């Protein structure tokens, strides 16, 4: 059986936990061995060390969600040199060192989707603020960049500030409270990562601004259910990481078997709910458009 390894950005968070679950399910369905191992903090250096040890150990495929796309290049080259199938998933690396990038949705689509949700929540005019995770998180910054690109299309909306709260809910609550205090007239506050989104929602509730300020952002639904009930959150954005994990393992097996993805058309992947599309130009396998969670659909997801 094939040994397929997936290295998340870090272990111990619900998002990658869901990907792990998907990967495991795929491994069972497809009869391969699935190895899930990653650093406990979002450290690229540690990821490299882990990949190197996987090479020493000998695996058939390595899929990585790099904390720094460029930094994994040398080690991925080394893996490739040893005949290992190299892939990226969730976040891309350099194109020449991976066979395929299994992408949840394109960063542009994500950034745009968040901006569109923000615009809709505030009825297309007013101010909003962003609380992000770490200032160096590559994908968060990319999404913010696209978000700002989209923002240009909404002339009546203003972004008042971008702050950072790391991977810590309590910090996000405190920063959120300070932001609301500083800009009481904002209509939306965005939490860009798993911890910031529930943090700012909590801050809205603590500040007694439910109904005046909407919290939204990118996070797993389990963190937001409670806040939706309390009315601080109406909509937020993500995709289905469980499906993404499944697709990653599926794609690895598919390539290891010597197949080639059919280009530019929906692919039937048994076991997941969307129909991914493969773009040969960028060697990208895209899960589908980002999901917008609402009170109506949130109970369907358990991650």
């Amino acid at each position, binding site marked *: 059986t094939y040994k397929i390894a997936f290295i998340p950005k870090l*272990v*111990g968070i619900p998002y990658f936990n869901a990907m792990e679950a998907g990967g495991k399910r795929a491994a069972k369905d497809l009869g391969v061995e699935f*190895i899930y*191992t*990653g*650093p*406990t*903090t979002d*450290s*690229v*250096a*540690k990821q*490299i*060390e*882990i990949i*190197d*040890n996987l090479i*020493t*150990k*000998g695996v058939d495929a390595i899929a990585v969600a790099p904390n*720094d*796309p*460029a*930094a*994994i*290049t*040398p080690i991925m080259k080394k893996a490739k040199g040893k005949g290992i199938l190299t892939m990226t998933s969730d976040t891309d690396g350099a194109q020449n060192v991976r066979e395929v990038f299994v992408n949840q949705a394109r960063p542009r689509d994500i950034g745009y989707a968040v901006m569109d949700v923000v615009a809709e929540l505030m009825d297309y005019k007013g101010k909003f603020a962003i609380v992000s995770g*770490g*200032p*160096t998180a*590559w994908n968060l*910054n990319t999404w*913010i*960049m696209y978000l*700002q690109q989209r923002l240009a299309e909404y002339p009546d909306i203003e972004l008042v500030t971008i702050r950072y709260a790391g991977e810590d809910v309590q910090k996000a609550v405190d920063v959120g409270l300070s932001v609301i205090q500083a800009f009481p007239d904002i209509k939306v506050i965005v939490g860009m990562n798993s911890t910031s989104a529930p943090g700012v929602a909590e801050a809205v509730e603590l500040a007694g601004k439910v109904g005046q300020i909407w919290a939204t952002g990118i996070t797993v639904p389990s963190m937001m259910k409670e806040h939706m009930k309390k009315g601080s959150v109406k909509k937020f954005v993500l995709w289905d990481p469980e499906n993404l994990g499944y697709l990653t393992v599926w794609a690895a097996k598919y390539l290891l078997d010597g197949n080639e993805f059919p280009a530019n058309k929906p692919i039937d992947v048994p076991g997941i709910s969307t129909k991914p599309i493969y773009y040969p130009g960028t060697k990208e396998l895209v899960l589908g458009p980002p999901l917008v969670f609402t009170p109506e659909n949130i109970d369907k997801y358990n991650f």
Partner: protein
Amino acid sequence: MKKFLNLMATNRSFFLFIFLIAMFLVFSFVIPEFSTIYNILNMTKYGVEIGLLAFAETLIIISGGGGIDLSIGSILSLSAMVIGVLAGRLGMNIVLASILGLIAGGLCGAVNGFFVSFLRMPPLIVTLSTMYVYDSLALLIAVDKWGNPMPVSNFPYGYFFIGQQTYFNIPFQVIAIFIPLALILHFLLSKTTFGRYLFATGNSEVVARFSNVPVKKIKFSVYVIGGFLAGLAALIMTSRIASARPDLGAGLNLQAITIAVLGGTNIMGGEGSILGTLMAIVVITALYNGLQLAGISSIWQVGTLGIILIGSAIANIILSRKYSSVE
């Protein structure tokens, strides 16, 4: 036998060495890949950067008076960004950029040293503050045209020999930088007047002052050396991973301190050795490698480290109660 146990009890490096051998045997037995020459040589490179930081902490902690450097990881980040921005974004010659990166590291250390030694401020506060400052500076110089701090990765190809080249499977940075440096530092500490002065200062600053020891210079210089070592680690790391990031050193402070302490450096100052720290680096590098190869979740890497830390202290106490006073 008694002599052996006595040595175990009193000599930290020897204790760690025995521990290392035991660990090697266990790992080799359980994991076939572990004791291959390839693996052993290959894993050495993962001890280099953190090892340099641990050496820095060793010197600084020995200097006493609560000496500690919480900014060491941030210095690494800042030096890395200096190299990255100068070479990658501004197109400066890579050799020059690297030298400036090292100087930046030394300068950061000098700032720490200035406050600690000449203004006599508590090292913990000083380096905590500069940790914020250097982190912030690293972020600021990393800002791209979109206003986001972004890593720099377009280094010239020639730069990579420092961190990626191997000779007979031995990584360049291990053989050409780390080992010579460890030797020099060991020599410095155990054989020279600098070493004497350092231990004197760490044992009692007052007595040292009364004994004509240039206390201020010594304290200042350990922070400078520390900063320089962090700069060197930054150079090696950016070359190895081909990327300069403003968060490259995040979380390394505590690891470096942990290694120094495991190696027998007394947090109150005045006691410690390069050899002990070196042994601790080897233990930790081999431990992480072994656990990963054994497929044990990385979650338990730190946990195991914790157990070793406390366990070895207990073992040491038991041993020294039983054996150290027997002549």
